[in-house]
């Protein structure tokens, strides 16, 4: 293309290869742009999905917390805790109160959530303890610091259920059995007398770890991501097993997060952190997913695209080279052949290929060269014949004056000795030679040609004495018709040698010139033996035979001059004798 731009010649192969390879750039460019865009969109979408996941998980957890909260609402009215008004002095009374409390908690309020409840305590205003845990029965067993902290916190929101992490548990019983179930958050509510608004008791609902893990345990943050829940004070309430949260940068970022609302941050350019804070509990859910995980599928797509592009490039290069070769090679070969074609290597042929347009070029080129070869051959033959005729004429012109002088001397001697027949013969012979020696001319008139034939017959009549008769007839309109010289003499000579000479009593030769349409017909008839026409035709077409050489020369000269429709014909119509016809076009002037 550049070559074209700089107006230079370029090979067809280079052009095809350049175009094919340039075309490959477009899909590659499209692939790279698509990958980059898809990467951007993917990251945005994943960020949104991550935040949505956190938000929805938080919402599910809040619904769980709200349910626990609502289950305690029946305790807000006086009648529910009336059993506390009974005396709790004896062990049995305390047992009965505990039993009622336990029944109320397990049988009525939390019956459907028992698999999430670890213990439920009620600490009355006068520090009596009712507990579902038989090991916890005295206020002395309470961790007083935690209790005070919780009570203080409750004063901030006295009507609401408050949630505390395991760190603030007021009673820790020793595990009697191996169990994977652990204590978890505690829900605490202040219960006031609905009539007097005086503090009646604090209700502690200690939940186990399944309470949270059942809600969030099946939540997956991507493949390698993780999430944690922390309370408003930053204490961890739930955390998936992951080293992600052990990273100092991550810890610090989470610690500094706003304690309200939601958001997304990129931490250390390595992790995507989404957080959401619950308005119900104040718990903050933080989900972390390595950016690498988000990029990995896209990187994998890129890797595959690169592999596909690389493989495609290789295959396209191979295919382009092969196609360029397939298309350009015959063209190049043809062009090279055309540029190197000369007279010397016209015999070389171009193999015809399978591409239709190129094969047409190759076929026509081959035909062209064959035609040129044929024309060259024809021209060569003509030139050779011309040279031969010229040589012959020149040879014959070597000493014409000597020949004429000699014949003149003989003529005068025959006059001196009164030998009339000799003088006639010499006179005829002189005319014969004069015509013959001047036959190098291309055209002569019909009259001159017939005069020459008459001369020839006159000379031959001296040879054959009384055995030869001859008769020459011509349409007078044809006397100026142009004819090649010496075309009748070989025919008459044949008629004498093959016809009259073989007849003991001699014969007659008749020469007749007539016109048929635009053709002139010259007929030579002898009364001798007939002609084997098939044999005569074969001899006429056989270039190697020395027999009838003169007649064949006449035929070839006529065909070369006028075309194949003219020439010699043998007539089979004669019962005795032989008739040879010569057809030439009627012309009185030499064609342009």
């Amino acid at each position: 293309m550049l070559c074209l731009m700089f107006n230079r010649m370029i090979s067809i192969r280079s052009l095809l290869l350049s175009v094919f390879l340039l075309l490959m750039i477009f899909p590659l460019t499209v692939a790279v742009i698509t990958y980059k865009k898809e990467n951007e969109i993917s990251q945005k979408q994943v960020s949104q999905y991550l935040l949505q996941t956190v938000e929805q998980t938080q919402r599910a957890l809040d619904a769980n917390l709200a349910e626990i909260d609502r289950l305690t609402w029946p305790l807000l009215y006086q009648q529910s805790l009336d059993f506390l008004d009974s005396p709790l002095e004896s062990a049995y009374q305390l047992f009965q109160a505990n039993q009622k409390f336990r029944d109320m908690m397990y049988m009525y309020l939390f019956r459907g959530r028992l698999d999430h409840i670890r213990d439920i305590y009620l600490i009355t205003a006068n520090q009596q303890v009712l507990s579902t845990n038989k090991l916890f029965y005295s206020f002395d067993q309470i961790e007083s610091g935690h209790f005070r902290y919780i009570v203080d916190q409750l004063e901030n929101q006295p009507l609401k259920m408050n949630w505390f992490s395991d760190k603030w548990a007021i009673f820790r019983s020793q595990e009697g059995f191996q169990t994977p179930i652990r204590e978890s958050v505690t829900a605490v509510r202040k219960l006031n007398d609905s009539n007097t608004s005086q503090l009646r008791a604090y209700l502690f609902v200690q939940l186990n770890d399944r309470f949270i893990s059942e809600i969030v345990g099946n939540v997956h943050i991507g493949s390698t991501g993780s999430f944690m829940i922390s309370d408003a004070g930053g204490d961890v309430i739930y955390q998936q097993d992951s080293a992600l949260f052990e990273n100092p940068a991550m810890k610090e970022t989470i610690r500094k997060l706003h304690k309200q609302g939601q958001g997304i941050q990129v931490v250390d350019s390595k992790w995507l952190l989404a957080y959401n804070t619950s308005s119900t509990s104040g718990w903050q859910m933080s989900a972390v997913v390595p950016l690498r995980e988000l990029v990995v599928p896209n990187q994998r797509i890129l890797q595959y695209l690169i592999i596909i592009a690389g493989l495609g490039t290789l295959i396209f290069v191979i295919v382009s080279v092969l196609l360029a070769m397939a298309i350009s090679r015959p063209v190049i070969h043809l062009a090279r052949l055309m540029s190197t074609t000369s007279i010397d290597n016209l015999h070389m042929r171009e193999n015809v290929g399978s591409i239709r347009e190129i094969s047409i070029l190759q076929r026509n080129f081959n035909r062209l060269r064959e035609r040129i070869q044929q024309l060259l051959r024809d021209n060569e033959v003509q030139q050779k014949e011309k040279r031969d005729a010229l040589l012959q004429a020149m040879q014959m012109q070597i000493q014409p004056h000597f020949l004429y002088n000699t014949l003149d001397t003989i003529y005068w001697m025959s006059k001196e000795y009164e030998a009339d027949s000799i003088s006639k013969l010499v006179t005829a012979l002189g005319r014969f030679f004069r015509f013959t020696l001047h036959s190098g001319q291309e055209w002569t008139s019909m009259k001159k040609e017939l005069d020459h034939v008459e001369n020839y017959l006159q000379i031959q009549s001296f040879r054959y004495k009384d055995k030869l008769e001859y008769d020459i007839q011509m349409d007078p309109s044809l006397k100026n018709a142009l004819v090649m010289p010496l075309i009748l003499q070989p025919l008459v000579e044949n008629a004498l040698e093959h016809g009259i000479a073989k007849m003991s009593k001699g014969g007659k030769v008749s020469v007749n010139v007539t016109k048929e349409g635009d053709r002139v017909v010259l007929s030579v008839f002898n009364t001798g033996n007939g002609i084997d026409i098939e044999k005569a035709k074969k001899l006429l077409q056989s270039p190697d035979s020395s027999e009838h050489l003169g007649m064949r020369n006449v035929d070839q000269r006529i065909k070369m001059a006028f075309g194949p429709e003219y020439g010699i014909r043998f007539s089979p119509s004669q019962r005795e004798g032989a008739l040879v016809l010569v057809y030439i076009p009627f012309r009185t002037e030499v064609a342009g």
Partner: protein
Amino acid sequence: MNRFKLNTLMAAAFSLLVLWAVTGFVLLSRDMIDASTAPKAEAVVKVLIRTGTESAALRQIAQPFEQETGIKVQFIEVGRDSYFTAVGTQLFAGSNTFDVVLMPSTSIAQFASSKAILPLDRYIAMSGSASGEPVDIDDFLSVYRYNGSIYALPTDISTHFLYYRSDLIPKPPETWDELYEIAKTFTAGIHRNSPTRWGLVMPAVVPEEREKIFDSILWSFGGNIIGDDGQVLFDSKESIQSGEYLEKLMRESVVPGDLMSWDFARTRDALINGDVAMAAPYWNSAYPMIAQSSSPHKDHIRIALIPGVRDETGQVRRIPFQHGWTLSINASSTNQLGAWKFVEFATGKQGGMIYARNGGIPARRSILSAPEFRESRPDFALILKSLTIARSEPSLIYYPAMAEVQENALAKILTLFASPSDAFQDAAAELRNLSAHISVKVPERMGNNP
């Protein structure tokens, strides 16, 4: 280029392009997210268990079961205090949050009658053809039927032992009276120089412990709650005598005053710590825990049959309590076949061996008498011996109500709130009231031979 060459060339070019297209298709069709890290859906059997020795041993069965069947086991563990309420609530509510439930044999009638658990006969019949190893029913110490159908297979068998410090008490007491006397000797409140704080302890918490523990005393004295014919016997002379014995223990402070807060673990730990000289009646399952503990007293803590009452012939009548922990299939389970596979495996011989090696007491004769455990688990022999004389609680559809009445009566005695006579008479009246309103299913007794 001739036609053959051109065709070959075109075919080669086309093949390369097809190869390229196929390669691209295959590569881009691959899952871009690593499948190994993606969450997978898998078959899961959820088993509801109670915190305790049974669940700890049962958890050990999960791994070989998962390896053998490819079914993952997920345990839902609920604390001992709320377990029975949770099980009843969820089964009656038609909850499908669990497939298999661990329950005491005494609860089977209640849940079977309400069709909350599945009869297992169909699965038991099927087991022979499917696995080639049919369930060996005869090997179980007991199976639990309701209306002729088996509803649960036992995974654990329990009975009561007497635990005593052999370094202090060379010969274990044979009667309750002997026990009382020895206990007094080793109670610091009575004998200041006693090496132990308490001469005797027993679990007395609710639910479950209090009335079950007392049953061994009640039956030894010849008392009963409800007779085989459905008659209430809790206020019989023999029953009241057993209550008076308990009252005596409390009144004389031979046992801790807060006995009602003593549970299995506290009793076990008191033995391990050397705080008590004896524990009776007390669960057999504590023995392997004590043996595996690092207590300096563990080699001195021995087990024996619970004491009894000597009759006129001089024979000591001992009737220890026995019950089984069984596995049943939740009728609302969405994976009943998987549930059966777990029940079959856990209660089978392979599961039983694993269970036994991890401190459990499988309810199979072949395992309890296996030579493998003869030395490592000397408690097995005593279990078999105890089971020959042991008795089960009646299988009643109102069993929880009956137990609650009994627990309340015992609480009155343990807190010295009422006399045994009053407490048991009140309880008997409540029981008669209960039985009058609820049809009694007496014949389906636990411990029936298979």
